């Protein structure tokens, strides 16, 4: 065999476990640093930290779902619109009545799953480019929603508000739910056939198909997971805002931000490498950034600039690291 058969994998370790870790350390340093610097040590106590974690919930749940589509080599631009649909649908069906909670949640999840199937089917069966397919579906959803509702529609009962405001002791339900969902997602990716197939399809869809994997079902599955995550986020926002409005998803820029945090977390935009813990670290970074700017009392716009710069820097660093020696 020739010279370089045992060539060192240049910087492989960086992208596996360490990318999330780097982002995590950076976020914590930012948050703690700014808290100390501005003298707001209260922010480092339980309440402050729980507040920080609560900032993560909405973006965190969507981004967990987005991680699945991106790992599969796809992407979902319809999540923001689906979040609005889910929130409005939930509060409209509930109309403040406790007994309608369960039906509303059921309807939202079913609708979300259908949107996921439609997205996935467009991409895998009709071979529509994922950006275009999900952009189109998102526009259709938003159009139907805006045609039917112009303002906050209905309301959620007090019991449903517990989703956002209730807690186990000091830990809010929502924060606990985010981490439980992340753990479940991580297990699905690591320990199930679906997870293994997801990485395979993202790594080389044609190779996976020729090896006998039903790549179309994998893509559809990833989109169903992503849409369900968006639906759950919509439910959470309806609970937090006590009602749903047709613009809440768009206002949160959940489509682009969810993609950004997945990428910051070290998942390859091309698919096939990455995971949910990196994504959560990315979400934490954005939450820390928000908190830091709040503590400093600076307006929100420089924050946007910084977010953009971080996304670009992260991708550039990963790309350079990935390139290694292979041309």
């Amino acid at each position, binding site marked *: 065999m020739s010279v370089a058969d*045992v060539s060192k994998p240049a910087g492989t370790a960086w992208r596996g476990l360490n990318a999330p870790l780097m982002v995590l350390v950076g976020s914590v340093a930012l948050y703690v640093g700014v808290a100390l610097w501005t003298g707001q040590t209260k922010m480092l106590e339980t309440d402050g930290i729980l507040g920080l974690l609560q900032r993560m919930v909405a973006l965190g749940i969507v981004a967990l779902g987005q991680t699945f589509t991106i790992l599969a080599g796809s992407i979902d631009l319809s999540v923001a619109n689906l979040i609005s649909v889910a929130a409005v649908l939930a509060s409209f069906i509930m109309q403040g009545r406790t007994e309608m909670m369960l039906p509303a949640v059921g309807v939202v999840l079913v609708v979300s799953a259908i949107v996921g199937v439609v997205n996935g089917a467009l991409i895998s069966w009709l071979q529509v480019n994922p950006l275009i397919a999900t952009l189109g579906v998102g526009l259709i959803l938003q159009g139907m929603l805006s045609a039917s509702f112009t303002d906050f529609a209905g309301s959620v009962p007090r019991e449903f508000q517990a989703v956002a405001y209730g807690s186990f002791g000091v830990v809010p339900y929502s924060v606990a739910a985010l981490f439980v969902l992340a753990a479940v997602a991580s297990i699905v990716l690591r320990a199930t056939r679906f997870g293994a197939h997801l990485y395979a399809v993202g790594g080389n869809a044609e190779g996976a198909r*020729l090896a006998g994997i039903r790549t179309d079902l994998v893509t559809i599955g990833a989109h169903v997971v992503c849409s369900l995550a968006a639906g759950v986020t919509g439910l959470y926002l309806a609970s937090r805002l006590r009602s749903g409005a047709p613009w809440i998803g768009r206002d949160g820029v959940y489509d682009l931000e969810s993609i950004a945090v997945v990428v910051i977390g070290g998942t390859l935009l091309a698919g096939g490498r990455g995971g949910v813990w990196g994504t959560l670290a990315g979400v934490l970074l954005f939450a820390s950034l928000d908190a830091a700017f709040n503590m400093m009392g600076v307006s929100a716009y420089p924050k946007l600039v910084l977010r953009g710069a971080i996304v670009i820097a992260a991708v550039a660093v990963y790309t350079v690291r990935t390139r290694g020696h292979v041309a």
Partner: protein
Amino acid sequence: MKSAALALEMHNITKTFPGVLALDDVSFGCARGEVHALCGENGAGKSTLIKILGGAYQPDAGTIRIDGRDVAFSHPVAARKAGISIIHQELSLLPFRTVAENIFLGIEPTRYGALDRRRMRVESERLLRRLGSSITPEALAGDLSIAQQQIVEIAKAFAIEARILVMDEPTAALDRADASRLLDLVRRLSSEGVSIVYISHRMPEIQAVADRVTVLKDGRAVMTAPLAEAPTSRLIHAMVGRDLAEFYPPRSSRPPGAEALVIRAASSRHLRGVDLAVRAGEIVGVAGLEGSGKNDLARAISGDEPFETGTMEVDGRTVVARSPRAAIGAGLGRLSDDRKREGLLMQQSLRDNAALTLRAFAGLLRSPTAEPMSSAATDRRLKQLDVRAASFEQEVRLLSGGNQQRVIIARWLARDLEVLIFSEPTRGIDVAAKAAIYRIMRDLADRGRAILMISSDLPEIVGVSDRIIVMREGAVAGELPGGASEEDVMALAVEQGQSPHALLQ
């Protein structure tokens, strides 16, 4: 016309990639007005040498001189500025832009800051006339024939006043009349003082057009000689030359077993009435020219582009393979001829790659120790196949071609398949690794698998196969026993009147 000054000199060029020594101390030169043919098998290092000349790669060692002056190209633009133009096999014209726009791509003349379209048109016209072509500069490049596009590519080279022209298999996609016109043009350009590096596998072309020939083999320049001293037989020997007896594993002495794969009267869009049978323990080689249907046969059997009519049996069971998954389920596996595009998950580990087929058929949940997902079983297979890597967690893209191929073989061994189809099993793999792949195939056959080897590599077909099936125009043209001569295979593969040397590509 030839002047003593060498227009191009490349001295002692060495280039390594992870896993391969691509060029080993190669020297190459081209005088003004000389046509210097460069030939060698796939993977011999031709394209690496050309990429270094064109500035796409930087050599690890060695020097390049243009007209006697040392140069170092850090970028393709630098090479172009030095007067080097490379016409790649895949033409790179923008199909929806005009001929003139293509010719002046990146060097558009301007007048008062605006594009000077008139000058582009006039200049293009002049360049095209000089090449003896009547293409109009306003035509869209996509509307031209391949031969005409090639002329435009050459015009493009002269738009930057190239003095060294590299042509990479320029006649590969041309019919005979166009090819001979192109050869005339090459001769005319060289008589005008252009230095031409002409890459081709086609011996008659080299004999017709070259002044000198260099043969690359396994990254070394094994021969450089004036054409008069390089008859075709010597060139082929230099390209292939090795001790074939040692290279190919001995055939099995045991008689083959029962028929493992039987195909009857099978047809599809590209295949007509294919009948064939492969027995357990046998390696059957499938040869044929490009477009003969040999690759379509592999795709059809493996369910990628299934047969439309006819029957297929595996171990006596009738099988309908409508998809790769169904084919694998029925005991048919195929190793693709395109490892990169259709095989490997480049950025994932050896283990993930080797476990792929197993995982495709795994149960819903994978437990860390159960067979489908177990890395212990995967590791065992990788070790059996002698995969060399720093670690099995290493990304597969960092391996050499030979080791990558072993990882894919490991993937297919994970399921106990009756029939394995190897498409171009040693494409882009260095010589030592080739021999190892042959041994693995022979070993698999000895253990009772039926092996169908689709290959464009004639020595490989003749050296490895127990039986040889030759395809032509989508049908089986004939069958030969193992050890048949390359000439016998060619005779079956070529249509009447076609040059047997076409097979060498």
